[in-house]
């Protein structure tokens, strides 16, 4: 491993960890001693709203197939619909994801 790669790896790993951990330490100190309900209520509204919206944005980005072709777009659409249908039926995590991936693969196979 060259010095440049090693140095960059250490700096990025450390800084990424600190970006993930420091805000938690800060908020844990701020919320110390409060009950579960108060802890949830006392985080700023914009921050509590941002959580689900980050998931929504990740969903939007991950729905675009690579490469962006009609076939893969159709497979994505079918996979998403099947995932949602199975979720309405089972209300669980694993089965809807499994059914979505299988239906996605089936459409790819048929095209």
């Amino acid at each position: 491993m060259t010095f440049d790669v090693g140095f960059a790896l250490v700096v990025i790993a450390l800084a990424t960890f600190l970006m993930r951990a420091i805000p938690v330490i800060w908020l844990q100190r701020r919320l110390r001693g409060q009950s579960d309900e108060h802890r949830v209520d006392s985080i700023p509204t914009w921050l509590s709203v941002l959580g689900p919206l980050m998931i929504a944005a990740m969903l939007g980005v991950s729905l675009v197939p690579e490469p962006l072709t009609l076939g893969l777009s159709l497979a994505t659409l079918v996979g998403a619909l099947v995932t949602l249908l199975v979720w309405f039926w089972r209300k669980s995590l694993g089965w809807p994801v499994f059914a979505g991936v299988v239906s996605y693969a089936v459409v790819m196979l048929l095209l």
Partner: protein
Amino acid sequence: MSSEQRSEWQAAFWQGARDAIPLFGGYIAVALSFGLVAIQAGFSSFEAILISTFIYAGASQFLFVAMFATGAPLWLIIATTLLINARHIVYGPNLAPYFTPHRAWPWLMHGLTDQVFAMALTQLEQLREAQRLPWFIGLALFAWLSWIAGTALGAIGGSELTKHWPLLAEAMPFALPALFLVLLAPRFNSGRWALVLSGTVVLALIMKVLGYPNAAIPLAAISGAICFQVMHRYQLRKGAEA
């Protein structure tokens, strides 16, 4: 710790490990691609595994090896990679209200990826306090191990694997959008949330299509938050007038 507490701890840990299974499809497929790309960019298998173990952040890892391969300046590689990872700053504070008082939590944040965050945000509130730490350890540990294993697989035998099972390699990444969809579906419980969430999904999708995949997540989420606040204030004002 009593035997009852220990068995509850173990049950929650394995529940977390089981909840990590839906992540494996996406993680192993993407990590496998990363292993392959890293080798093609001139990194050794060991270096690729080290990057996945310690940086552990999908998009920025790809950028890291690609920028090194093109000979970009060191400061630019570090700055760009950290800029992509900056979205992680808001993840921890969203989860912190559900964390129990324990010194381990900040250390566990190494495992706070996009997908682990999405899973924890929806699941932690449903767990009892005593279950949260072992559940998160199980989830984060198995997700991390699958990412490292996927990288090793890609770096060592990725080209052979994709040659033999091309459909598997192509279909597995769909596990990630499917998982996000399942995590988000219960949030469509009011008109305001449905509107803002749909708008955020569409905006992020458009930005990705236009070629801005890294800016899409923070910008779409911030736009959604602004719309949510505007609608919230409008409703408050309307309520005050009525």
